[in-house]
């Protein structure tokens, strides 16, 4: 089930107490797509990590549906991510020694036995859908675009309803980036998945329902349409 996002007074500080991100208010409907843009160091990725529940010691509220991530233990947040969130990173973060299928079905290694087959089946289906063969060669031999597709298949193999992407096209050439944007957006539209993507890529941001601008950790004036 796709979850709505409600963020209230979300403040992330560094160890010295300096405010890195301050987002007073953000609501996102289930199945919507949100781009986050801003100059380097504006706190875009930090905010994305905050939405994934990867940061400790934050203030405010980050609600996914009825779940307030900030009041949960790190173990329960991990469990929430495993059940609901798929993450995509700029440099793919794949296990180079494993093949595409093993990377895409990574979650099968730590999920309960009963769910492993489902994850593996969905991983294979996602790979096929994204035009990748599930051959036994390691992903080290794949191109950047292919690797990012494997990462998308990994993010979706566990039926994630929320996709959080951190600069998903930054390591790809234009053609590969455009193809990936197409895949990502279609996938989100077809399945009603919520997508939040941090990016400098105007073409990706153009395809988002909404775009949030961040500057020096603060929401840029008039950034939310």
């Amino acid at each position: 089930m796709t979850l709505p996002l409600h963020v209230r007074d979300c403040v992330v500080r560094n160890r010295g107490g300096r405010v890195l991100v301050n987002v007073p208010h953000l609501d996102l409907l289930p199945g919507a797509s949100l781009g986050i843009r801003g100059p380097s160091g504006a706190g875009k990725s930090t905010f994305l990590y905050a939405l994934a529940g990867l940061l400790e010691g934050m203030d405010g509220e980050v609600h996914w549906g009825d779940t307030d991530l900030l009041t949960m233990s790190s173990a329960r947040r991990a469990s929430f991510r495993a059940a609901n969130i798929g993450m995509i990173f700029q440099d793919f973060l794949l296990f180079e020694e494993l093949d595409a299928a093993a990377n895409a079905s990574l979650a099968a290694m730590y999920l309960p036995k009963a769910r492993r087959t489902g994850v593996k089946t969905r991983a294979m289906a996602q790979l096929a859908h994204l035009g990748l063969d599930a051959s036994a060669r390691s992903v080290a031999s794949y191109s950047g675009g292919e690797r990012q597709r494997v990462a998308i298949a990994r993010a979706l193999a566990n039926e994630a309803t929320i996709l959080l992407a951190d600069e998903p096209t930054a390591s790809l050439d234009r053609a590969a980036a455009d193809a990936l944007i197409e895949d990502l957006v279609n996938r989100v539209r077809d399945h009603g998945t919520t997508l939040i993507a941090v990016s400098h890529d105007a073409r990706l941001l153009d395809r988002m329902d909404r775009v949030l601008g961040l500057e020096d950790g603060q929401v840029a004036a008039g950034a939310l349409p």
Partner: protein
Amino acid sequence: MMDLWDSLSALMQDIVLTVALLLPALILWRLVLRGFAPRPLIGALLWRFRWANALFVLLIAVSVGMGLGLLAQERGLREGTARAADKFDLVVTAPGSEITMMLATVYLQPSDVPLLDGATYQAIAAHKNVSIAAPLAFGDSFGASSVVGTTAEFVQHLSDGKIEGRLWESTAEAVIGARTPLQIGDAFEPAHGVGDAAEHDAHDADLTVVGRIGYTGTPWDRAVLVPIETIWEVHGLASGHAPGRSDQIGPPFDPDYFPGTPAIVVRADAMWANYALRSEFTRDAQTMAFFPGAVLSNLHRLMGDIRQAMSLMSLVTQCLVAASVLLGLFILSRLFMRQMALLRALGAPARFVFAVLWSYCTTLLVAGSVLGLGLGWITAMVLSRIISARTDILISARLSWTEFHYLAGFVSLMTLLSLLPALAVLRKPIVDGLRG
């Protein structure tokens, strides 16, 4: 509980002890990996750092192998020296050092020692509980082989009757040990003395080899055995027999014509009789009777402290090597901090990440230990061959349950210590790990 333990066979006790020592590692393995299937990931990490991993495994293997090899060797040496003394139940010599006399008689390391006279020999040989009383006369040599004068009966006893060819029938004939560098039919001239000080032309005697005894795994395998009358004869002494019987070979000897013998090996007809004979023939200023086995066991007991120190040092060395390896793994684990952070970002439970790292460390430790077991076996075998070649004492150092217990304890201890680098990785914030 102790009764139950005592009721188990020795093999069962060893198995139970090995399992008990491995139990902490097995429980840990079960607890840490329960509900997960991380094998492909562990394989990926092992493969990614294969050269560093191979080096770690090798370091552990060498330290474990050397420790096990030395322990096995030390035990093999004890067993080998004890086995070499098996045929020497009781030895009677002139009073002096039991160790010197044991080295001379059992291990053929001759020394200048006083002789026992004919009356003493007669008293021993005629004793009602004595079944064999064999005089041993040493001091001559052929090359590196000691030439020992004795009786045919002792040769039979020493070889358990396994003799190729035949026993001597005259003082010009000799029987050789299995590894003596002579052949049946060869003629040779014994030298007076042994080693560099041997006088090669001192004896005008040509002896012919007529028999070869079976392999005993003792220094006697390189000896040349001759009738004791031959030794007396080449030294210009009486023949041990009254005139008119001077062609006789072997007992009985005539005390009046008995030139003397450095040692007499005594075999009693019953075990208990050995003790009676020992006290009977231990006479101040006249004779000394001792059990080579008991002298050896005293020596081993004295060396027991050294053995324990050696075991401890070997264990400490192994733990230090393993600790260095763990430190290496700790440093290495920082290289895949990003992958671990990724797993946690994807929602993997902390225990899964912990299980991957712990299994990775444990795989290296177990692989090193198993390889070390093989290396220990090879080390023990090579050392055994070298020592056997040098001493002629058959050392068959095999890995025994002691080594398995030792290894099981080591593996358990190190798997527990492997928890530390795994825990250290979990302490790093996920986002710091993701950013590399």
